């Protein structure tokens, strides 16, 4: 079946919905989503969204932009960071005006709290910048945006899995998708397509990410010849529930929670004397691992699954109940403890992809180091790389990224589609996707994908995790390549057409394998330590050789790397201490 729209948005999390709200006012728009919109992973974001409102103490967008650049270990494009910080203020007020129930100050204004790496006056001390709605800020943003989409009659195609991008002569002409309910292939022809498909934390074994976070947009772009930017930078959030990886918000530390080792010591005093537990995430995650490796984990056995304690007992039931109720509930459900009485056992968990589809600050996809735009193709949110997060994202800046750049992309699309003709598409555009589905469902017997998934996640977790070295990463690249070969034999067990979730999982597995390969290869390539990329064999940052973005091209089962300049037009890179 062929559909014709002006604008197609793929994904219905924060950036997709915000873009849809803007684009649908200016063009005929449809949102394709593999989940019901309210199930998107934006809803799992907890702690807050930063904006220099200055509601509780002095703050400035300039300080916010600087913190973002320094937090990203100077791999952030600085003009983009300024846009992020400056537009944050109005973006947060817009959300409030549209009904988002932020926590309030005694004066009835939006309340703000501390978060890692956010400081006053260029690093002096933590500042209260994170606007929050209890510890379910992402849920509230997702709900508010979906509510507004209902109000504005945005069209949704729920439970449509996008398989391919129609790209001819550097112009995007639409997407090909499979409908879960029927198994039917659909072609969505469009003047503009925005990918807002979210992250891909499921390449790792222990992750805070949803099962649905399989990087569909970036993987499709990579297979269609668009390089992915800075894929080596993957954030491990310091505090996931031990074993499960379920996120325990940084807001716990923002409200005063303390990380402690087996002796009960506040070990962050050694690693970050100024910001302590509110140092950026890459630093805190490494500090936890260093403690564990030194036998200072709670068990003290130096094993990879040893853990530390996040102590929130001194905050009291009242603060926990009012400001961190979901965290309290997670601890009760999954650990059987009350954080008011017992410390929370935590371990870093794979959390956020700083890298992704390269874009400019209007969401337009860029395919090379010269800034060449792919006509009609946009990306926003976690799947994109603007880059405002550089080598390490600050907490609360992801929700902000969604809102600011989702909105900008939606607006730009609205103008762009007025200027271009409806693309002509041939009947063959669905052939590639059709062949893929046919191969997976041809009835031959083959291995199921479950084992390949497990081996991939373990390989990435063990070899491309927080601390990295050449030998381990080479092993990961080799293993992913062999898993890609085995994938060719995988067949779907479910021969039905309606609600064939088996087919969708096998499709997602391919996306994860491609992104694992790109991540491992890009990490192996970068011979320095910067932000979340910490190499034991190259422990220092090397601005002379590596102050540059990587662009990883996927060619079958190999990866070729090119580079792109970093915008350092505002602040000179300096050593990063906190």
């Amino acid at each position, binding site marked *: 079946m062929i559909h014709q729209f002006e604008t197609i948005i793929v994904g219905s999390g924060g950036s997709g919905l915000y873009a849809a709200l803007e684009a649908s006012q200016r063009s005929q728009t449809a949102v394709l989503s593999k*989940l*019901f919109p*309210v*199930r*998107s*992973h934006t*809803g*799992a974001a907890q702690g807050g969204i930063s904006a220099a*409102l200055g509601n509780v103490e002095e703050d400035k967008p300039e300080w916010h932009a600087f913190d973002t650049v320094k937090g990203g270990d100077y791999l952030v494009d600085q003009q983009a960071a300024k846009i992020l910080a400056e537009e944050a203020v109005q973006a947060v*007020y817009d959300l*409030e*005006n*549209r*009904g988002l*129930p*932020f*926590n*309030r*100050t*005694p*004066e*009835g*204004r939006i*309340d703000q709290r501390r978060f890692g790496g956010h400081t006053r006056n260029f690093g002096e001390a933590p500042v209260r910048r994170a606007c929050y*709605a*209890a510890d*379910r800020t992402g*849920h*509230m943003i997702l709900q508010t945006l979906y*509510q*507004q989409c*209902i*109000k504005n009659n945005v069209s949704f195609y729920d439970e449509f899995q996008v398989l391919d991008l129609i790209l001819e002569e550097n112009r995007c002409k639409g997407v090909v998708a499979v409908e879960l*309910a029927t198994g039917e292939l659909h072609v969505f022809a469009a003047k503009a397509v925005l990918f807002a498909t979210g992250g891909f934390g499921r390449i790792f074994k222990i992750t805070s990410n*949803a*099962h649905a976070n399989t990087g569909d947009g970036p993987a499709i772009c990579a297979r269609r010849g668009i390089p992915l930017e800075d894929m080596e930078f993957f954030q491990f959030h310091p505090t996931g529930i031990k074993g*499960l990886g*379920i*996120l325990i918000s940084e807001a716990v530390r923002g409200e005063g929670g303390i990380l402690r080792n087996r002796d009960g010591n506040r070990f962050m005093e050694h690693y970050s004397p100024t910001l302590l537990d509110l140092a950026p995430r890459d630093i805190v995650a490494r500090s936890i691992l260093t403690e564990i490796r030194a036998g200072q984990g709670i068990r003290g056995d130096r094993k990879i699954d040893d853990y530390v304690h996040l102590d929130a007992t001194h905050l009291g039931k009242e603060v926990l109940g009012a400001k961190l109720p*979901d965290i309290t*509930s*997670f601890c009760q*459900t*999954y650990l059987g403890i009350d954080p008011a009485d017992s410390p929370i056992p935590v371990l870093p968990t794979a959390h956020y992809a700083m890298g992704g589809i390269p874009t400019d600050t209007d969401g337009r996809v860029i395919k090379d180091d010269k800034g060449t735009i792919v006509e009609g193709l946009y990306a926003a949110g976690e799947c994109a790389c603007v880059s405002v997060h550089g080598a390490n994202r600050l907490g609360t800046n992801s929700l902000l990224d969604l809102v600011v750049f989702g909105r900008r992309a939606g607006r730009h699309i609205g103008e762009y589609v007025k200027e271009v003709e409806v693309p002509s598409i041939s009947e063959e555009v669905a052939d590639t996707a059709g062949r893929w589905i046919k191969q997976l469902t041809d009835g031959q017997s083959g291995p*199921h*994908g*479950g*084992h390949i*998934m*497990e081996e991939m996640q373990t390989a990435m977790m063990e070899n491309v995790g927080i601390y990295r070295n050449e030998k381990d990463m080479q092993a990961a690249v080799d293993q992913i390549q062999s898993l890609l070969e085995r994938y060719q034999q995988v067949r*779907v*067990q*479910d021969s*039905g*057409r*309606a*609600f064939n*979730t*088996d087919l969708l*999982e096998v499709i997602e597995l391919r996306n994860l394998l491609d992104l694992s390969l790109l991540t491992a290869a890009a990490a192996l390539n970068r011979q320095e330590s910067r932000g979340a990329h910490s190499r034991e064999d190259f422990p220092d940052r090397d601005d002379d050789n590596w102050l540059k973005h990587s662009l990883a091209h996927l060619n079958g089962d190999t990866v070729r790397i090119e580079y792109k300049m970093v915008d350092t037009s505002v602040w000179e890179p300096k050593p990063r201490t906190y």
Partner: protein
Amino acid sequence: MKIILKIKRFNPESDENSYFQEFTVEADPNDRLLDALMHVKRFQDGTLGFRKSCAHGVCGSDAMRINGKDGLACKTLIKDLTSRDGDTIAIEPLRHFPVQRDLIVDQSEFFKKFRAVKPYLINDDMPKEKERIQSQEERMVFDDTTNCILCASCYSACPIPENHSAFLGPAAIAQAYRFLADTRDQGFEERLPSLDQPDGIWPCQNHFKCTQSCPRSILLTKRINQTKKMIETYRQERNEKINNGES
């Protein structure tokens, strides 16, 4: 430990009737029920159909009936359902919805009812300041209802739709309350037609099943009763009758 999942299966393409199928799974007592279902799907039977996403109780995808109670498979632990090796867990799709495949149900009516209450802030005034000012106390009045993840556990737990399928249901009413009780909202009269009608709020008989089932601890029955009160007060002030279908 070994547990047995007794899962209700149905594929409309090939089955005339639903049936139960048993799977034996090795599980840790601290595993989520969703982990056990994933194990079946990935390593035993890829054809098993169920929805899932966040795996920690915030996205609402995996609501189902678990040993006769409605809830989320990712927020239910194996140890809460079993005590010894060989114990069985019965898993069925949510009630009151057409089954599309195994544990996957068609929730389009549920979302239609949600949309009917105009679940968005209604206020066309320009904010007087940057924010629409609201005290923390005012915000807390509707706080629990903002927890809703639209998982539909409450709708399945409610006994009313069985004989009254047009009933709005607990989630939609609670989402109406979420805005009616928000000092920034001005949409009471716009929402009234969907609530004050025989299929609207009035069929609720305070069975409390919704409240008991809610994985997000929303005081659904209380919020429904508060909404009833608001409507009754509004009608009394105007010497009008509520429209509950009774003359």
